[in-house]
């Protein structure tokens, strides 16, 4: 019963976020600030992770394709793996950890210290100011960070491949994109907007509804990471199914 109540309240929360995000007035300044905090500050994490993932994927791809004498397909295979699934999902999971934990802890601390009540006392719409701006920033940041992860991953694959075969940079990227279609890049990149919405919404819901003092802040932070990750993966399954429905392989 409690689970159903939580799901229902979370659904109402998400619906309110969608409605409030399109209704003026818009909090541009706070949205940009959140975009900086959530997006720009995540670039090092995403770039480093993408580079490392690219190297690992290249090594695994080479080990698999070399058995069939198909080393020439390594750039294309790596690109397809990154663009279609590995890049978006890895970026989403990484950001659910960093952003989800941050939003949950920040809003939870504001709740237990009655800063949200103070904002309400000054006639500021705390939901629009604190939640909608973070959700919009996440929805905007996730595709951009996913693109960054895709390219840093390909670059890592290039570094790993050129250290073995000496493949030129331009030839590697041209071969990488010979197997990628618009149907591979666009849906997979845009689905991360859903990931951003899920991460920010779940974390904001858990943060705003924090109680029990500082202990509740920590619990909200942890629950934000766990819940957003689970929902992200579940949503990914659904989204991939929807993408395949519109763009069959």
């Amino acid at each position, binding site marked *: 019963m409690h689970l159903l109540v939580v799901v229902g309240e979370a659904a109402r929360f998400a619906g309110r976020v969608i409605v409030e995000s399109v209704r003026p007035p818009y909090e541009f300044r706070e949205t940009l600030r959140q975009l900086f905090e959530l*997006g*720009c500050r995540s670039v090092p994490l995403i770039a480093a992770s993408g580079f490392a993932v690219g190297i690992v994927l290249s090594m695994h791809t080479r080990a698999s394709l070399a058995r*069939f004498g*198909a080393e020439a397909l390594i750039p294309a295979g790596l690109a397809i793996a990154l663009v279609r699934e590995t890049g978006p999902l890895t970026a989403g999971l990484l950001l659910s950890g960093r952003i989800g934990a941050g939003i949950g802890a920040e809003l939870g601390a504001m709740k237990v210290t009655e800063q949200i009540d103070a904002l309400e006392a000054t006639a500021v719409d705390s939901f629009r100011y604190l939640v909608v701006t973070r959700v919009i920033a996440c929805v905007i940041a996730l*595709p951009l960070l996913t693109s960054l992860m895709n*390219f840093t991953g390909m670059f890592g694959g290039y570094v790993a491949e050129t250290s073995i075969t000496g493949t030129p940079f331009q030839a590697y990227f*041209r071969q990488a994109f010979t197997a990628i279609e618009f149907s591979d890049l666009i849906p997979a990149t845009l689905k991360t907007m859903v990931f951003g919405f899920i991460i920010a919404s779940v974390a904001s819901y858990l943060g705003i509804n924090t109680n029990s003092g500082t202990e509740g802040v920590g619990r909200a932070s942890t629950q934000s990471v766990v819940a957003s990750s689970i929902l992200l993966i579940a949503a990914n399954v659904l989204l991939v199914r929807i993408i395949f429905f519109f763009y069959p392989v």
Partner: protein
Amino acid sequence: MNRMRSALVGAFVLVGLLLFGTGLFLIGDRRLLFVEQFEINSTFGKVTGLEVGTAVTVAGLAAGEVLEITLPSRPSDRFHVRMRLREDVRHLIRADSTAGVQTDGIVGNAFIQISVGTDASPPVTAGDTITGIDPIEFADLIQEGRDTFRTVSQEIIDLQDDVSGAVAALTETVETANGVIENVGQDLETLTATGSRIATDVEGTIADLRVTVNDVGNGQGSIGRLLTDDTLYERLTGIGSEAQLAVRNLRETTDRARAAVEGFTGPNGTSQQISQTLRNTLAEVQEVTSDLAEGTEALKRNFLFRGFFRQRGFFDLDTISTQAYQAGILEGDDRTALRVWVDAGVLFAVDPDGVQRLTEEGRRRIDSVMADLVRYPRDSPLIVEGYADASEGGAPYLRSVDRAQLVRGYLLQRFRRQATLTDIMALGESAPDSPRGDGRWSGVALTLFVRNDALGAFANTSTR
């Protein structure tokens, strides 16, 4: 929020959009979205691996993609494939270009390869349809390779059989040729030796003839008196000419035979030429031998040379009377007659119809006699003398002929004697040297005329 943070946010958004846009551009560039394009069509019986977006190359250069694959309206029709190509490759694609479905390696993607056309054909225009070549599937290759392997194996087996047959036939031919060559060589050697011996004999004869003629010319003997007879002189001249002609022919024949041998063993000789030459030579030799035999026979019967030939053992029993024979004309000065008497009671039996036949005991007796006579040279003439007593009834001469013929036939069959050296002399009942002592004999006498130089210790007369 200060300006620095705003700039960083702007940079973050721009970089993210730029990366995403770069990906879109690379994909679009590959799909020729940013260059001028045209469309052409092709048809295929099967489209293994083809799908919308499949790459299309022109002479190996990436030139476009597949836009649409239309199913055939009925099974006998072909798939219709619509392709979009770069405009800058249109001049390479001619009306005789072909489109084939190929695979990039074993596990690679399928793609359409368009061949470059010929200069004589016009360039294609948008919407044209070029000939499509169906893809070759791996299973088809394996099946084709299996069929090819079976065919090649069968061909090898057939070829092996043919070669074995040819080698066997060649071996047989070589063996036959070797046999023919050996036989021809032996015959040729025999022929040459015989020709040389005959030539030597004839030369000796001519030398003797020349001596005789000289004696006659010198007026020695009674024959000299006959020199005034022109007829005899002309006959003598003719005989001499015939003898010289025979010798000349024989020499020419010998030369030709030698030439035939050289041609046969020479590098340019061929078996056909040799065979033909040999046939011609043999024919000529036969002709010359026939001429020589006729000439010799003429000489034998000529009264001038009869004695000469008789001295050398040449006799014609048809011309010898029984009296002359019994007087020892065949013995002469250099031969001795070895005569064995065999009684008719042992040799012959008379059938109920009155016909004589040789008995088994008679054959064994003849064998016993010949066991002693075969010690002497086989070229010694053997005369079977037939005798018949008047007391036996009938005509003694005819009975003696029959007896001599029976024994002679047995000798020719049993001892392989030469027919020219084995003859008969029917003497009737007259046997002056008969062991009975009354001048008569019933049976036969085997008489071997042996040269004195070959005669050993042997009784002149014996009875069996």
